[in-house]
C-alpha cells in the first residue's frame, strides 16, 4: 500500500469512528429522553474536533472538558443564584465575561477554560431564549444534568477512539511523516544554499518556499508533541526520543541560520580548497539529511572526517574568510547528524523501531 492509499484509508477509518460515535450519542439522547440530552452529541462533536492533532489531544480534551464543565456549572450556578435573581441587568455583563474567558483561553491555550465558558454560557443563553424553560426546569438544576451528560459524552468519544480503528488516531505516524519532511527540507535547504554560495545561482523564491515549508513542519510537530504524552501507547523511551529530537532540530536550525547569514553577506571567493571538492562535501551532506532514516538504522560514513581533513589543510591566514566558517558549519551539521544517529540507534532503538512500525 503506498503512502497516499494509507492516508486515504486512515481518513476513512477516522471518519467512520467519528460518525459512529456521534450517531451513538444521538441515539443516547433519544433513548434517555431527558431534557438537554443534546448535550451528549454536542460533547462528542466538540471533543472529537481535536482529531487532527491525534489521539492524545482527544484524550486531553475529554479530561479538560469534564473538569471544565464542572467549573462551568459551578460558576453558572453561582451566577444564576447571586446575580440573575436580583436584576436582569446583570445579563449585560455576559459579553464581558465571555471576552475575558476567551482572552485567557487564547493566552494559555488551556482547554479547561474553553470548556468552562461553554458550560457557563449555553445554559444561560438557553434560559434567555426560552422563558418556558425557566418555569419548567429552573436554570440551576439543569447545570448538574449537563455535567452528567458531559461525562457520558466524553466516555462515548474516548471509547470510540479506543475501540474503532485505534491506530488511525495515533499522532505517531503524523509525527514521523512531518519529521521526515523536516529532514528532506533541510537537505533541500543545504542544496540551495550551496548552489547560491558556490555558483551564485540564487533563487530567492525557491529558498523562501523551502524555508517556509521547513518551518511549517517544525511548528506542526511542536504542536503534536504537546498532546502526544496523552496517547495510550506513549512511554518514557518515546518521550526521551522526542526531547532529543527537538534539541537536535534546534541545533540544526542554528547551523542553517549561520549558513543563511553567510550567503546573505558573502560568496565563494576561491581562496580555500577547490570549488568542486567543496561542492561535493555539501552534496554529500544534503544526501545524508535526505536519507536520515538509513543513518538512524545504523548506517555510518566518514563524511565528517573528510570535512575535518579539508579544514585542517586550510592556511591559518585564510581562516578569516567566510568559506572557513561555511565549511566549519557544514562539519558541525554532519557531526550533529552522526551523534543523533548514534543516539537513536543505540539508546532509542526500541522507541524508534516502534515509531517506524506504527
Amino acid at each position: 500500500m503506498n503512502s497516499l492509499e494509507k492516508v486515504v484509508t486512515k481518513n476513512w477509518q477516522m471518519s467512520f469512528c467519528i460518525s459512529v460515535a456521534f450517531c451513538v450519542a444521538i441515539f443516547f439522547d433519544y433513548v434517555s429522553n431527558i431534557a438537554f440530552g443534546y448535550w451528549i452529541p454536542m460533547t462528542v462533536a466538540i471533543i472529537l474536533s481535536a482529531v487532527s492533532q491525534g489521539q492524545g489531544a482527544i484524550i486531553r480534551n475529554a479530561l479538560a472538558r469534564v473538569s471544565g464543565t464542572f467549573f462551568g456549572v459551578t460558576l453558572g450556578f453561582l451566577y444564576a443564584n447571586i446575580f440573575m435573581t436580583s436584576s436582569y441587568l446583570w445579563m449585560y455583563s455576559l459579553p464581558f465575561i465571555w471576552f475575558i474567558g476567551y482572552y485567557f483561553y487564547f493566552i494559555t491555550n488551556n482547554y479547561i477554560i474553553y470548556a468552562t465558558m461553554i458550560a457557563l454560557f449555553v445554559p444561560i443563553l438557553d434560559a434567555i431564549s426560552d422563558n418556558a424553560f425557566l418555569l419548567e426546569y429552573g436554570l440551576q438544576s439543569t447545570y448538574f444534568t449537563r455535567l452528567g451528560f458531559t461525562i457520558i459524552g466524553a466516555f462515548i468519544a474516548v471509547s470510540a477512539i479506543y475501540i474503532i480503528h485505534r491506530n488511525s488516531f495515533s499522532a505517531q505516524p503524523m509525527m514521523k511523516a512531518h519529521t521526515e519532511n523536516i529532514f528532506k527540507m533541510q537537505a533541500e535547504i543545504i542544496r540551495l544554499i550551496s548552489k547560491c554560495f558556490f555558483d551564485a545561482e540564487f533563487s530567492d523564491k525557491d529558498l523562501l518556499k523551502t524555508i517556509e515549508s521547513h518551518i511549517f513542519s517544525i511548528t506542526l510537530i511542536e504542536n503534536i508533541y504537546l498532546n502526544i504524552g496523552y496517547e495510550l501507547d506513549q512511554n518514557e523511551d518515546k518521550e526521551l526520543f522526542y526531547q532529543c529530537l527537538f534539541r537536535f532540530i534546534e541545533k540544526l536550525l542554528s547551523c542553517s541560520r549561520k549558513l543563511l547569514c553567510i550567503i546573505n553577506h558573502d560568496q565563494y571567493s576561491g581562496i580555500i580548497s577547490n570549488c568542486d571538492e567543496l561542492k561535493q562535501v555539501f552534496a554529500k551532506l544534503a544526501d545524508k539529511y535526505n536519507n536520515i532514516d538509513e543513518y538512524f538504522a545504523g548506517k555510518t560514513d566518514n563524511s565528517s572526517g573528510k570535512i575535518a581533513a579539508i579544514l585542517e589543510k586550510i592556511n591559518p591566514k585564510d581562516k578569516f574568510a567566510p568559506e572557513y566558517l561555511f565549511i566549519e558549519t557544514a562539519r558541525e551539521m554532519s557531526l550533529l547528524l552522526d551523534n543523533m544517529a548514534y543516539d537513536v540507534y543505540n539508546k532509542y532503538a526500541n522507541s524508534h523501531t516502534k515509531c517506524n512500525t506504527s
Partner: protein
Amino acid sequence: MMKNYCSSIIAIFRRMDPAYDSLFSALYLTVPPLLAGFYSLYSLKPFSIDFVLLAAFMFLGIQTFSSYKDKLTYISVFLLLVALFQFIVNIFIAHPTVIIVCVFLIALPILAVDKIRSACLLALTQLALFLNGSWGWYDALNGIIEVVVMGIMVISCMMLFEYSFSKTRMRAHLLYLIELLADAFNIMIFPDKKTAETYLVNKHLLAIPLNYRADFLVEHLFSSKQHIFLHRLFTQLTKANRLIVNEDYYFQKNIAYRNRACLAYFQCRKLFREITFLTVYLNNEAEIQKLLPNTKALMSNINGSFKIIYKAIRTQESIEATLSDTITNQWLVDCEKLKKLCTATLDKEILEFIYGIKCLITDIRKFEEILKNHGDVRHE
C-alpha cells in the same frame, strides 16, 4: 501614582500577550456572537442560542486560514452543512432513526476529507443544538434563513476587522519581534541574569514562567536561556511571517502597509541569523576582550541601536544614525590588525563571533536606511 498603576497593568498584559494576538482573537470571538445576540433579541423573532453560537464557531474555524479564498470556502461549507442539518433535524425530529441514518451517511464522506473535516465537526456540534429545538417546515425554512443572515454578518465582521485592526496587529508583531531581538542580544552578551535584565527592552519577557503562554511549546526542553530566547524568536518570526507576509489583505491601505512592514520584517530575519553567531560570546568573553579591547563599547553601542530602532517604530520618532562611526570603525580596524597578526591561534568560536558582529553592523545600518526611506512603517 495613577500612571504607575496603569503602566503596571499594561506591563502585565504585555507580558502575557505581547503581540496582542489573544486580545484580538478574543475580540473576534466576542463581537460577532454579540451582534448576533442583539440581532436576535431585538428583531421580531425570539432570541436564538443557535444563532449566537453559530457566529462563534464560524470565527473559531476561520482563525487558521490566511487567504480570503480559504476563509470564504470554509464559511460556505460550514453554512451549507449547518443548513442541511437544520433541515434534516426540523423535518425528521419525530423520527430519530431517519436522523441518525441521514447524519451518518452525510458525515461519513465529508469527515474523510482533511480540508473540510473541522467545518463538518463544528456543524455537527451545531446539529446537536438543533436537537433541542422545535420542528416543522416553517422552522426548517426559518433556520436556513437565519444561517444565511449569520453568514453575511460574519463575512461583514471579517472585513470590518481587517479594515480596522490589521495595521495595528502587523505593527504589534513587528515591535515584539524587535523587542525579542534586542533582548536576545542582551541575553547573549551579559553573563548574569541581573545585568541582562537592566538592559532589557521588555523586562517582563524573562520573568514569564515556562509553559505559561500558549506559544511556548517546547521551550522547557532547552537548558540555556540563550536557546530559549532563540526558539522564542523563531516562534515569533513564524507568527509574524503568517501575519505580515502570508496573510491575504483586501483593503489597499493594509496591502500598502504590509509591503512596507515586509522590508522591516525581512531585515529582522537577517538580524536573527546574525545573533545566532553570538551564542559563543560568553564562553570566550575574556579572550575576545583581550584581542579586541573595544568589543564592550561596541556591544553597548549595538544594544543602544536596537533600542533606538524599537523606539523609532513605537513612537514614530525620526531616526538618526544609531551606531557610532568612531566605535565601529575602531573595532573593524582592530579586526583587520588581528587578521594580520595571530590567526593561527584563533579559535573557531571567536571567528564566528567576529563574523556575526560584522554582519550585524552591516544589517543594523541597512535597517536605519529602511526606516529612513520607508519610514511609513512607523505610522499608523
